[in-house]
């Protein structure tokens, strides 16, 4: 049986990590990943104090910077890959705006349901197709890069991976914090954490929770400009199946807007869009989630409901 994964709500104002660790019966050290905090990844004093046990900072961000300095050829290739992904994201964003605008127009239109309902579903399906294509394209670029550059076989990366593996082997669980989800996921992959999360208990929150799911969707319903449409970012490490993790949902999504909630849920079906706000706790072992607290599900009807175990 695969080890448990616990997804938590944001930890800054209401830390619940230590409770989750104790529930898992973990007495030993914790390997912490705070690469999503980027330059601030070493600022884990609060985390250490909260956990009150040995915490090993894996320093994936710092390690990555070292790799980039020492393996310039790889760095240049990695940067080109990033440019390609950004361009792809930009094109997707532009296409998404028009496709989603059209879908919203049709969904809001009043008229004969017999005529409109099939059109509504097809308009939404067009958005789903675009999302799915983007997920495939980002995965293709990542796979092409892996095949061409074989990061795990490069000396500098292999050395860091071995060190990280040894550090994790000396701990009982991985704690993966939030931050910049793009930076975090890239660092996790670069250091081979996608394999380690399958053999080690994981506790993850905010962007860390997003990284543990199969599909990462970024969102902000009230940006300073633009329509604020959620975007598929790419694939996560797929440690938890069927879930779309939405940290800080109460702040970043207009959960009182039933139309937007419904559109979100229908667009990303069959994934379960789950809001992870303060105090949220989802405990999964294999495909089953055995403990759920303060996790709310966005429904196709436009409701935001407390999720039951």
């Amino acid at each position, binding site marked *: 049986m695969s080890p448990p994964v616990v997804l938590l709500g944001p930890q800054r104002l209401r830390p619940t990590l230590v409770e989750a660790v104790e529930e898992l019966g973990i007495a030993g050290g914790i390997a912490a990943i705070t690469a999503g905090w980027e330059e*601030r990844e070493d600022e884990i004093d609060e985390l250490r104090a909260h956990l009150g046990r040995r915490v090993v900072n894996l320093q994936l961000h710092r390690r990555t910077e070292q790799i980039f300095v020492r393996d310039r050829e790889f760095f240049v290739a990695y940067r080109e890959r990033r440019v390609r992904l950004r361009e792809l994201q930009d094109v997707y964003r532009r296409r998404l705006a028009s496709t989603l605008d059209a879908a919203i127009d049709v969904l809001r239109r009043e008229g004969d349901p017999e005529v409109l309902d099939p059109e509504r579903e097809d308009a939404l399906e067009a958005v789903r197709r675009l999302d799915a294509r983007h997920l495939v394209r980002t995965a293709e670029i990542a796979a092409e890069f892996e095949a061409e550059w074989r990061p795990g076989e490069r000396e500098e990366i292999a050395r860091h991976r071995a060190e990280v593996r040894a550090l994790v082997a000396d701990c009982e669980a991985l704690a993966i914090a939030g931050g910049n989800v793009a930076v975090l996921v890239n660092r996790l992959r670069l250091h081979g954490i996608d394999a380690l999360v399958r053999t080690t208990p994981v506790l993850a929150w905010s962007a860390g929770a997003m990284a543990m799911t199969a599909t990462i969707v970024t969102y902000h319903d009230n940006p300073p400009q633009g329509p604020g449409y959620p975007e598929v970012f790419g694939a996560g490490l797929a440690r938890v199946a069927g879930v779309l993790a939405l940290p800080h949902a109460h702040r970043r999504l207009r959960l009182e807007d039933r139309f937007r909630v419904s559109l979100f849920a229908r667009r990303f079906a069959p994934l379960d869009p789950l809001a992870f706000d303060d105090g949220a706790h989802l405990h999964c072992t294999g495909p089953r989630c055995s403990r759920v607290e303060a996790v709310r599900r966005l429904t196709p009807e436009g409701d935001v409901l407390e999720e039951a175990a």
Partner: protein
Amino acid sequence: MTPELRALLTSERPPDPDAVERYVSERGSPVVDGTSVTFLHRGEADAVYLQHFIYGLPTAQPLHHVPGTDVWWIEIELPRASRIEYKFVVERGRRKRLIRDRLNQNLAFDPFGANSVCHGDGYVTPHWTLPDPEARPGTIETHEIASEAYGGTRSVRVYLPARMRPTRRYALLVVLDGDDYMTYARLQTVLDNLLHQNEVTQLVVACTQSPDRMREYAANEATARFLADELVPYLESVYPLRRTAASRGLLGASLGAVTALHAAWRRPGTFGRLLLQSGSFAFTDIGREVRSPVLEPVVDFVNPFRENPGKPSERVFVSCGVYERLIYENRSLVPLLQRTGMDVRFVESRDGHNWENWRDRLREGLAWLFPGPLGLVYE
């Protein structure tokens, strides 16, 4: 006007001033009913006028007197989402006083004091202008900077984002009238919030303040020199700043906006981001006649600028209130800026020439000029 208020103010029954005041205490004053706004005043007077600073309407509009009472009122049409500042002119005998509305506790402050504020239907004070307990506050450091341009030293307050790190490179925003932005436009709170929300990239913000802004901010060569040749190099020597034009910005309002555009024009390639709020971009198409002698040096800059703007910056955000006299100058500037090849965005608001108008546009302007990793960060 609401039927209840109309009945209180215009009915044939004996008037009851206390009932009016009770109504106001429940509803707030001015009484906003859709686009109808009723201003009320109580007090002995020969005449009372609403002075509202809306360009396009008579500056002072007389209030109606409710006979046999000390109640005065006026109803005006105010478009949705408007926000206006006002006072009452109260005349009694030969005495004329300019006072705030004592029935309205909503005030806006500026260097000259405070005005009463009316929020039209649909206006909401932006949430990001209010302190957010989750936002980590930045810190302020004060520097005394020697200036050959001005002669002597200038005090500059520098906002540093929370958790600033020497290993990271930061963008720089220089703010004209920076202390006033801090005091009257809640700049520090706004920065804390926008940085916390990742709507704006990590910024160091230098607040400059002039002891003689009417001269130094009127397209003044010494100010351009100080900003570009003295302040920026000094700050780059002290803080880890990105040394590209795209990472340097100027923010100013009114004459401060003139200063920002002028400095960028005089030092092209230095400031790649401009946030120009209600700029006093006075110009003449023929002759020299301007509204005020203060604006003469501005005209001396804007006229040749309009003839030969070059490309002083890369991205320019212009905002202006439609109730400002300067809306004409700003609307006319925008197409000219666009023709230079710069990326230009223009936003109008239903507001006047005041600090809260400028405060309310900061999010859109800063997030466009210095976008942060909004969608990607979940801490």
